[in-house]
């Protein structure tokens, strides 16, 4: 098993921490991971992306060109990464940041209105977890119990109340994901 994921959006949307929680969840499931961010002069409002590789074997190159899954949170990222999803792969996107819908017909495309989930929860910080939930609904590469362990490892003890809120947002994301087109 090997899953290569690009998560891309604006700085401040929680792209890097979503990747970290996913990576930690995979470690809790005794899988190998690499988490490689773009670390240029990015900042809030600029673009941010992270490449997460999860595998049951040792991972060689952390640098890859094609992805099994792209999780896309803004238009710039869709323009950059839509072509880089492997045929038969998965693209998850948040339509609120997108002006042009994905055009690929050879991949599974689904959307998640994560802003709505975050608004209903009354907490913008859980936005990224709704997106993670949508992804995990499509590809359950890590068990929910390990995602919770990943959350516990990633969130400092003083924000322990956030673990439950994040967990709820993941569950909501799982419920609310919409399949636009499927090749599965």
């Amino acid at each position, binding site marked *: 098993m090997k899953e290569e994921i690009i998560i891309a959006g604006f700085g401040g949307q929680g792209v890097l921490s979503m990747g970290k929680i996913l990576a930690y969840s995979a*470690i809790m499931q005794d899988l190998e*991971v*690499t988490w490689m961010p773009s670390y240029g002069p990015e900042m809030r409002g600029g673009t941010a992306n992270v490449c997460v590789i999860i595998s049951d074997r040792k991972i*060689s190159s*952390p*640098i890859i060109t094609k992805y099994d899954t792209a999780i896309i949170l803004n238009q710039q990222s869709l323009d950059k990464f839509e072509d880089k999803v492997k045929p038969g792969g998965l693209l998850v996107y948040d339509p609120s940041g997108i002006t042009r819908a994905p055009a690929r017909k050879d991949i599974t495309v689904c959307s998640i209105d994560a802003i709505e989930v975050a608004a209903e929860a009354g907490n913008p910080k859980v936005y990224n977890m709704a997106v993670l939930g949508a992804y995990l609904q499509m590809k359950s590469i890590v068990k929910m119990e390990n995602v919770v362990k990943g959350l516990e490892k990633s969130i400092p003890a003083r924000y322990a109340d956030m673990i439950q809120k994040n967990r709820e947002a993941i569950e909501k994301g799982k419920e609310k994901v919409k399949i636009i087109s499927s090749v599965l």
Partner: protein
Amino acid sequence: MAEKILMKGNEAIAISAIRNGVDGYFGYPITPQSEVMETLMKEKPWETTGMVVLQAESELSSINMVYGGASCGKKVMTSSSSPGISLMCEGISYIAGAELPCVIVDVMRGGPGLGTIQPSQSDYSQAVKGGGHGDYHCIVIAPASAQDMYDFVDWGFELAFKYRNPVIILADGIIGQLMEKVELHPMKPRRTEEEVLRDAPWATLGKPAGRERNVITSLSLDANTQENFNRKLKAKYDDIRENEVKFSEYLTEDAEYLFVAFGCSSRICEAAVDILREEGIKAGLIRPITLFPFPEKEISRLAGQVKSIMSIELNLGQMVEDVRLAANGQCPVGFYGRQGGNIYTPEEIVEEFRKFNNLK
């Protein structure tokens, strides 16, 4: 079972320093290694192990604080990135000249000058061939994972004290920034004063009655004294060359084509080897783990076995010179590199491999 934690390569350096009984860290922030000091400041080891963590006013200060701490037989280290290391080179030469142990972490970015903050391997020559003035060598070890970053701190100090020589951990922006699973080994306490005296009888910790004073210096104005000292250094470097070479090999046993790559590039090359092997091309990889001493004997042996060698580096071609010396004309030696923070993909390396070897 040891605890497994997801951490950045840079964080692993900091955590390892604390857990391996380092006495002092002196540094100055620079991308892409700022998390080293950030993590140390967050962990506050001065409250637990008593380790000193100090942000100096410049790289010059940090390396000279390292010089001072090392003179007292302490386990001291610094970290920086390319332009910062350039500033430290005078101090590193003095430390090598004074035969003091220390660990210097260089998380390379693209140069020359201030260059870019993106990953690069353009300081191979600076680290391996000198950087500072005079006939000296640092021992240079090149990590390729966050786990290596963790493990190499302890190994670095072991080598530094064994040979009374500075050790450079030559990492790059990728290895510093990526997060991976790191297995933490049991903690080693900091050495007691008695242990320091035992392990570093040369340290300047105050002269007891009954022995001559210890002198730490890199200055000797007498030509013969200096020459004898340089010859002593040469003997030490030969000893290091003989005993400390470390490398890893991937599918070299039956290889007809060889890649040589260190650090992050070795991992990208490993993926390139896999692509070529799937196509039935017998490629293999040797990864020098120590850059000084360089695994010249093993590369020389493989040069007699393969049709060609390619050195793959994130620079304009630095290690390739050492590969050519090792191959010594036994087979063609080629090079492919990217610069400025651009990083090759496994597919790109395969394409360049085909061009170099005239393969379809």
